[in-house]
């Protein structure tokens, strides 16, 4: 017991003071969202709970995708087939364009479709169905038809060893598509709230779920039905000196970096979880940028044309006279997501802390 405590302390110091060279699974420390009473759940439990409530409240709702029947490769749909029957919770053939097209058709009839794409890396075969079809259904038909009752659940992001095709964060590809809603939760409470909001939202939604949080993120999650507002960013930590913007797992890295900046640089960082990638909360962001005058955006996805570019350009246009330094982006490099080099690829807290220091001394 004592030794493990010591080891923990050593590891913590080691991680804080030097660039981590071990291949530890987590490159972040999870910061739970404080709420009232609830049940202790990790993120996959919370997602399971959200889908359970959705299937229970909406008797027509369907849940499908590759391997969802036995509970899903990340356990998100565990027990739901037993509870709601194999006609409502079922495996699809292994074909993403089919899953997406099928989901659109289900939603065309007004039935709630909860479709899972096993990994965000494999969403590209369904890109055509999502971008050309789902996103444009209402528009092109003059609102005669829509597929608004459709939600895609898509595990995304770094996981320590996922390499090229189990690590991607493709939100920016979809952010360029009018008609879609794209959201990313930072933990169990948010995941449940966002999913329940998306199931009910009259637009096609994509929920990118950072898979590294499925087990690592544990919170007291309210067991009743609740929704999280879509299109709304959360200010998680208030500060006056620098605005840090991220989403998903990166939020926790930014929270830690803000803590470190407070300790080591005596800087008050404001940390914002963007939550919604499209449509995104321009008001919260520009308000904070105008207050602090310094903005850092961090995301796992590559730099060029990452969603950080959109935010940076927007801030430059709307908050120009308030900026004390150029908007800085700390992101994955413009390479495919590598296997053994993952510790050097990610925009970890050290790179974020360095960016905070740099932007202060601009």
């Amino acid at each position: 017991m004592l030794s493990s405590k010591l080891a923990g302390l050593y590891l913590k110091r080691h991680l804080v003071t030097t660039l981590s060279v071990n291949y530890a699974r987590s490159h972040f420390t999870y910061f739970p969202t404080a709420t009232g009473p609830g049940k202790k759940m990790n993120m996959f439990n919370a997602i399971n709970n959200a889908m359970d409530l959705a299937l229970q409240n909406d008797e027509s709702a369907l849940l499908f995708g590759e391997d969802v029947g036995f509970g899903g490769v990340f356990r998100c749909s565990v027990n739901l087939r037993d509870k709601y029957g194999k006609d409502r919770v079922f495996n699809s053939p292994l074909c993403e364009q089919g899953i997406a097209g099928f989901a659109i058709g289900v939603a065309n009839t007004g039935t709630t479709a909860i479709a899972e794409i096993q990994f965000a890396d494999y969403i590209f075969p369904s890109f055509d169905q999502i971008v050309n079809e789902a996103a444009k259904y209402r528009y092109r038909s003059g609102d005669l038809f829509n597929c608004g009752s459709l939600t895609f659940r898509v595990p995304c992001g770094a996981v320590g060893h996922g390499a090229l095709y189990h690590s991607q964060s493709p939100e920016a590809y979809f952010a360029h598509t009018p008609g879609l809603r794209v959201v990313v939760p930072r933990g169990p409470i948010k995941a449940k709230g966002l999913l329940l909001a998306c199931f009910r939202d009259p637009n096609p939604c994509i929920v990118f779920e950072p898979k590294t949080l499925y087990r690592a993120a544990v919170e007291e999650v309210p067991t009743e039905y609740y929704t999280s507002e879509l299109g709304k960013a959360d200010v998680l930590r208030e500060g006056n000196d620098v605005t840090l913007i991220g989403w998903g797992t990166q939020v926790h890295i930014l929270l830690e970096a803000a803590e470190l900046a407070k300790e080591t640089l005596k800087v008050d960082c404001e940390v914002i979880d963007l939550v919604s990638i499209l449509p995104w909360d321009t008001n919260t962001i520009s308000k904070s940028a105008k207050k602090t005058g310094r903005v850092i955006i961090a995301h796992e996805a590559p730099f060029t044309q990452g969603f950080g570019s959109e935010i940076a350009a927007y801030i430059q246009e709307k908050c120009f006279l308030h900026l004390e330094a150029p908007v800085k982006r700390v992101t994955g490099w413009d390479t495919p997501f590598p296997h053994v080099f993952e510790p050097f690829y990610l925009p970890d807290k050290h790179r974020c802390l360095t960016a905070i220091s740099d932007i202060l001394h601009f």
Partner: protein
Amino acid sequence: MSFLQKTIPMLGALGRQHQHLRTVVGALPTSSRQYSSDPANDYANFPGAKAPFVSQLKLNLPEDYAPIPIYRVMDRDGFIADETQDPQLSREVVEKMFRDMLLLNTMDKILYESQRQGRISFYMTNFGEEASHIGSAAALEMRDLIYGQYREAGVLVWRGFRIDQFIDQCYGNVDDLGRGKQMPVHYGSRELNFVTISSPLSTQMPQAVGAAYAMKMKKGNDACVVCYFGEGAASEGDAHAAFNFAATLGCPVILFCRNNGFAISTPSHEQYKGDGIAGRGPMGYGIATIRVDGTDVFAVYNAMKLAREYVLKENKPVVFEALAYRVGHHSTSDDSTAYRTSEEIEVWNSTDNPISKLKRYMVHKGWFDEAEETAFIKDVRKKVLKQIAVSEKKLKPNWREMFEGVYAEMPEHLIEQQKELEKHLEAHKEHYPLKDFKQ
């Protein structure tokens, strides 16, 4: 689990299988199994397929399989080949079939010309495929949901889409149900259960399958889904997805292929090497399949009746291939004589034309009246030409509608963009065609 524990149930399973085999092969000594010359009884236990073992190596050649035959009711002279197959449709129904085919044909000719004169931006005709539209639509109920590709306007004609609705869509004017957002011939009608057409080929196929699944799940469902697509579109990955999802998930959908021999310039022999699209159904995806003469309105009608009955009774799909010939150019942006001869086209425009075939049938029945036909065509021409004049004079929708329908409600950033354009137009109105748009 120790090795021993693992092997016990495995041995048990083997024993059980052994016993089963023995009951099947009867007195055949077990030892002779591996040399058996009677392999039909030697079924394998692989989960992936139920099939017997054979001991002779053989390539399964496409030539080993007979092509799926083409069902027809009428010969090219309009005579019923087998009286038991006569659908015995009333004169009233047959006349509606004929009139709807004529209407579509006449409207096509005029709208094609109007595109040539630069009055509408684009058009696609339905020449040669009128029977597959009308025959299939006639066999369905209005509650059946239709997903189309773009060359199925006849289905809409049968269902009661009006000439003004067709033409308003082509002009994208203020009365277009689609609000001027899509190219001509991208029709849609909620009222008529016809899902709005989109240009990307085959995307509607897995969608139709999903809709069929959702409909099957509704209590007391008595409606099916019909999805039309061309043989070219059947090469897309989405077609594969649709066939396979429809079969594995048990969906009441009729996957209706209009095989007209060409995908723009690409002849079907460059599209696939198998037995058309029908050939993929039974062996490929495990789907009940029908192949019909798509120039024979009664064959299409009978087959669709049967297909509809089957999909609703079994909650399973049907692959339906209607063979025809694309008599017209692919679209107004295409001159098909660049890749096929006008002589070839002419045969399909006369002898094997669906309209002339039905006309011959009506002549035999004594239901055809030349004067009536001429008057009908004249009337349709008049209506279409008049409507063109009306539709082209109508204003386009308010430009603000450009921002509507992206989302169910307009998000803040779109409201801002709309305001930005408003301000810009106020300052520079002379550069924009504002007078053509509703204010």
